[in-house]
C-alpha cells in the first residue's frame, strides 16, 4: 500500500480542489457557540482534530434524525405516492477526520441496514459518502475502543486514512471510492520518508497508554445473555432516568419510529424519526400491554442488544467504544462498569 505525506499547510488547496469536485467536507469543529460539533467546513483551519470526538454521533449524516419517507396525495383516480429524500442524500460528502471508532460505526450501520431487506434511503446516503479516517491521538477519559477490539489506528472501513504528525499527515488511499478523489490530493502529495512507518505505532502506543482501562471481553463474547437474570442490573436501573441521551448519541443505535402526518384531507406524508429503546412507549402494544415495562428491562435491552444480540446475529459487537454514552449520561452510568459487572457475574 502506498503511503504519502501531505503537509498541513497544503490542506487548504486540497479542500478547494474537493469543492471543485462538488463535494462537501464535513469534519469536527466549533460552531458559533463554541460547541464541538460535526459541521461542513470550508478551510482546514476550521477543523478541530486535536479535540476529542464531538458528542453528536456521526450517524446523523447517514441516518438523519428525521426524514420524510414519502408524501401522498389522494385524488379521485387513486393515491399518488412521491418518495422523498432530503436534498442532502444525493449531495456528495466527505466525512473528514473520523476516528476509527466512528469509521467502524459507519461500517456497522451499513452492514445492519443492508441485511435481508436493504434500506434504500440509507444506502443512498452511504453511496454518496466518502469516509476519511484519522488515527486517534486524543482520546477522552470515557473511551474504551481497545475493549471492543478496535485499535486507535485501525484503518478498516475507511476509504482514505490519515495518520497525523506535527506538520503533516501520512495518507493512504484504501478503496476505489477513496481513489476516485485522489486527483484532488495529487498536487499536494509528497513522497514519504524511510521511518514514516513508525508514526502509526507511536500514536497507537501513546493513545493506548492514555486510555483509562481495557476490559478483556473476548472471554464473554457470545455468553453475555447468561447475565440476564443477575442482580447487578438493579444497581444501574435504580439510577437510570430513562432518557434517550445514550441512544440518540450512540453512533451504532439504529432504531427509528415511523409515523404519518395528515396535512389536509387529501395530503400528508410519512416520516421516520430516531427512537430509543429506553422510552416506555417504544414497545407499548395497542392493548396497553408493555413487554418491557420497567426501566430495568429497558436498560438491559440496550446493553444486551449491543453486547449479545448483534454478536449472535452479525458476529460483531454493536459498540465501538467511543464512550459517548458515558460522556452524555446525566446520572453518570458507566457502560464500562456494566461490562465489568457482566464479566464478574459470569465468572461466579
Amino acid at each position, binding site marked *: 500500500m502506498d503511503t504519502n505525506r501531505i503537509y498541513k499547510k497544503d490542506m487548504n488547496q486540497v479542500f478547494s480542489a474537493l469543492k471543485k469536485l462538488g463535494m462537501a467536507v464535513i469534519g469536527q469543529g466549533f460552531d458559533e457557540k463554541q460547541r464541538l460539533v460535526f459541521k461542513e467546513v470550508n478551510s482546514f483551519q476550521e477543523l478541530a482534530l486535536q479535540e476529542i470526538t464531538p458528542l*453528536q454521533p456521526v450517524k446523523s449524516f447517514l441516518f438523519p434524525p428525521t426524514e420524510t419517507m414519502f408524501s401522498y396525495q389522494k385524488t379521485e383516480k387513486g393515491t399518488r405516492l412521491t418518495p422523498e429524500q432530503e436534498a442532502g442524500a444525493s449531495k456528495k460528502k466527505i466525512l473528514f477526520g473520523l476516528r476509527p471508532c466512528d469509521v467502524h460505526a459507519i461500517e456497522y450501520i451499513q452492514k445492519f441496514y443492508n441485511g435481508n431487506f436493504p434500506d434504500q434511503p440509507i444506502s443512498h446516503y452511504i453511496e454518496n459518502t466518502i469516509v476519511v479516517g484519522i488515527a486517534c491521538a486524543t482520546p477522552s477519559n470515557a473511551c474504551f475502543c481497545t475493549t471492543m477490539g478496535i485499535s486507535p489506528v485501525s484503518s478498516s472501513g475507511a476509504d482514505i486514512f490519515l495518520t497525523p504528525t506535527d506538520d503533516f499527515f501520512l495518507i493512504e488511499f484504501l478503496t476505489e471510492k477513496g481513489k476516485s478523489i485522489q486527483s484532488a490530493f495529487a498536487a499536494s502529495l509528497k513522497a514519504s520518508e524511510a521511518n514514516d512507518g513508525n508514526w502509526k505505532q507511536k500514536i497507537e502506543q501513546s493513545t493506548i497508554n*492514555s486510555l483509562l482501562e481495557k476490559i478483556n471481553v473476548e472471554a464473554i463474547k457470545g455468553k453475555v445473555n447468561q447475565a440476564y437474570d443477575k442482580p447487578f442490573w438493579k444497581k444501574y436501573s435504580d439510577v437510570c432516568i430513562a432518557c434517550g441521551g445514550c441512544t440518540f448519541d450512540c453512533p451504532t443505535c439504529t432504531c427509528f419510529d415511523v409515523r404519518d402526518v395528515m396535512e389536509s384531507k387529501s395530503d400528508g406524508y410519512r416520516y421516520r424519526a430516531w427512537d430509543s429503546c429506553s422510552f416506555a412507549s417504544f414497545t407499548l402494544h395497542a392493548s396497553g400491554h408493555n413487554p418491557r415495562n420497567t426501566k430495568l428491562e429497558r436498560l438491559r435491552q440496550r446493553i444486551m442488544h449491543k453486547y449479545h444480540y448483534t454478536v449472535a446475529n452479525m458476529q460483531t459487537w454493536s459498540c465501538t467504544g467511543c464512550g459517548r454514552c458515558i460522556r452524555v449520561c*446525566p446520572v*453518570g452510568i458507566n457502560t464500562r462498569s456494566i461490562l465489568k459487572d457482566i464479566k464478574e457475574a459470569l465468572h461466579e
Partner: protein
Amino acid sequence: MINWSKITEATRHYLKSIFQPGDVILSYTESNTPGIMTPLVIREAEAIDKIILNPLCTQNLSVYLSEFFQQDIQSGNPATGKWVVTVKPCDARSVIQMISDEQITKDNLEMVVFDCDGTVTTKSLKNLLGGEIRSVKFEDHQAKGETLANKEVTADLVGSYQAKCSDSAICSLPDMHDYSFISESNRFVFHGSEKENTLIQDTLSREDCFQRISEELSKCIRCNACRNVCPACFCSDRCVMDKPKLAIPYITKEITLDQIFQYHLIRFYHVAPNCTACGECERACPQGIPLSIFYRYLHRLNKQLFGTESGSSDSDKQKLLSYRFGEDLV
C-alpha cells in the same frame, strides 16, 4: 469555605445514626469515570461508607423521589422504612415543591440538607483543567487534578460554579421545619457573589429573541433528557408527549424546528408553576442548549406573580391545577 471531606464524614455519620433496616437512602458516590458523580441508592448500612460529597454532586436527586413513591404505591406493598434523601440547599426546594404538588408525602420522608458552597459541572471542570480528567481532588475552593496527558493542574473553582450558585434566592435554606442540616458551622452562609441576571427576553427585541431561541433550539435532538432529569416533570411514562395513540397528536415525533418548539413550549408551560430553577435541564442537555434562558425567565415570573419562589415553602399550593372560588387570580 467548606471542607468537603468533613461534610462527607459528617453526613455518613449522621446517616448511620438514623438508618434502620428497610430504609432507602439516596446519595452520591463517584462513578467509574473520573470527574462524574453518580447517584447512589443505599439499602444496607454498610453502603453508607460509599457516600462521597464534593462540588461535582450536580445531580438533583429529588427526581427519583416521585418515581420511587409511585412505584411504592403501585407495587401494593409499601416500603417498611423511610426514604432518606441527601440534597443541596437548591435541590431541597425541588423536594419541597414536590411535597406541595402532592407528588410525595412528608410522612416517611427524611430530607438531609448538606452545606454546599457551589457545584461545578463536569464540562466546566474539564475546561478548567484544560483537558480530559484522569483524577481530581477538591480542597478549599480549588480542584487539584491530573489530565489524561499526565499533566498536573490546580485550578480555582470560584469563577466556574454553576449559574444558580450565584443566586441567593435559590441557594438558601428552605422554609420547612423538619429536615436535618449538615454543616461544619451549623449555619448556612451564601458563599457566591450575586451576579446581575440579564434575560434575553428583556434585552433583545421580540424578533431578535425569537431568532436567537430558534438558533439555539435547532440543535435539539429531542432525546428527552431535559424532561427526564426535571423534578417538576413528574408524569414519567404518562407524559402527554408520549401519547402515540392519539390520531391527531399534540406533538409528532419529528425532529424539526416546529416540533422542537412545540416540545419546549409544552415543557415550559407544564413546569411553569413548579420550576425551582435547579438548572438540571441545561446540565443534562447533550447538545449544550442553554436552557437557562427559559428557567430563569420562569423563576422571575413566578416571583412576580406570587411573591415567592417556587419550592420555598411546603405550604404553597399547586397553582395551575387548583383554583378555589374567590381566590385571587395571581
